[in-house]
Structure formats: structure tokens, C-alpha cells
């Protein structure tokens, strides 16, 4: 029970790399939180058994260790998934609706220079997607 709970907590942590690929589970990591909850419940039940009926269940030593490790994993997850992701610069100087988009010319993935005016001249407009990086 204790080890299964701990394993589910680890799955909850490492599976974020998979669930982050889908908007429904990236916008709010509800699947990961559900896994942490499930793992936590099993750990609590396992600890209750280990301390309540030590003559039947083992885990008075490794149970608390696994529980503390699980709490640390959950805290680290929470720090990344709820705090770090919200540390965004204010960008108060970003161009606003109604303003002209600042001009630019940058190389594309083939090294060919691409200017904003070129993008706009041959289309119905453009969507610029600024992103953090390929990682």
C-alpha cells in the first residue's frame, strides 16, 4: 500500500511531461493532481495501518520516509506547475490593439530573411506566435 502510493505519486510527477502536450491537461494539471491525491490516500492508509496494527502491517520506518519523499515531490511539482509558470514579465510596453505592429526582419528556419511587411502583403494578415523555445 505504501509503495504503491509512492509509485503513484511518482507517476503523477513524471507523467506531467506527457499530459503537458494536451491543452486540456496542460491548462490545469488535474490528472496529475488526481494521481497525487490517489497516491496520498494510499500513503495515509498505509501509514495508518503500519502504526495502528504494527503486528500485521509493516512500514513504521519506511512509511514515513516514503510519505516525506512524496510530500517533497508534490511540493516541487506545485512550485513548478503553479508558481514558476506564473512568473511572467509585465510586458506593459507590448503593442496594443489598434497600434501598428513593430516592423522586423528575421531569418526563418532555412536562414531566409522574412520581413513582417512581406508576410502582410501576400495574406489576409498574420498571427505572430512568440514562444519560449523548442524545449
Amino acid at each position, binding site marked *: 500500500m505504501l509503495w504503491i502510493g509512492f509509485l503513484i505519486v511518482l507517476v503523477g510527477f513524471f507523467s506531467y511531461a506527457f499530459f*503537458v502536450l494536451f*491543452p486540456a491537461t*496542460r*491548462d490545469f*494539471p488535474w490528472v496529475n493532481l488526481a494521481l497525487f491525491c490517489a497516491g496520498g490516500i494510499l500513503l495515509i492508509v498505509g501509514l495508518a495501518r503500519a502504526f495502528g496494527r504494527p503486528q500485521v502491517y509493516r512500514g513504521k520506518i519506511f512509511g514515513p520516509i516514503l510519505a516525506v519523499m512524496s510530500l517533497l515531490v508534490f511540493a516541487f511539482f506545485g512550485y513548478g*506547475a503553479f508558481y*514558476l*509558470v*506564473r*512568473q*511572467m*514579465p509585465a*510586458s*506593459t*510596453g*507590448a*503593442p*496594443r*490593439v*489598434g*497600434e*501598428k*505592429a*513593430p*516592423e*522586423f526582419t*528575421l*531569418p*526563418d*528556419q*532555412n*536562414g531566409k530573411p*522574412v520581413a*513582417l*511587411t512581406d*508576410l*502582410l*502583403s501576400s*495574406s*489576409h*494578415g*498574420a*498571427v*505572430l*506566435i*512568440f*514562444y*519560449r*523555445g*523548442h*524545449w
Partner: protein
Amino acid sequence: MVAISVDPPEISKRHCQKMGFTYPFLSDPKTEVVRRYDLLHPGAGPGGADISRPAEFLIDPTGTIRWVNLTENAAVRARPEQVLKAFDDASGQAAR
């Protein structure tokens, strides 16, 4: 659609090939355009590199910005339906 980041062209090319993206991925390693749009996120990249914060802009053919999405959460990005609605709204206003 155009994507912009500090990744060099060769990295973006591998990324596009891996993910199957076919639209332009522009490279701004010195963050010149990122700063021009005030989207710099200092030290937030791997190894403390300066990168761009996530943002999307819809620009009409005259070069005027019609829609901006400055997410407050790096994990929450504009959904395709949001961008399409912004495009429809902008087109509707232009028709009027």
C-alpha cells in the same frame, strides 16, 4: 502564422521537422524583436538565457494589431478557436 523565438534557425528546423510544422519559424537570438515587442523574459531560458515570454498577436493586412494574448501562465496558451474567433471578429469589423 509565424512563430518567433530565440532558437537559432537550425534548432527551429529540427523542431519543425520533428513536430510537422510547415509555417515559418523565425529566429531572434539577440532578442532584438522580442525587446521591440517588450516580451523579454530575462534569465528564464535554459542556463539562464534570455528568452521571449509567450504571446500571440493578430495583425491585419494594414499592419494594425487586432488582437493580443499575453498569457499570465506559461502553461496556458491561446487555443486555435480563440485565434479563429479573433480573426473572424477582425474580419467582421473590417467588412463594416
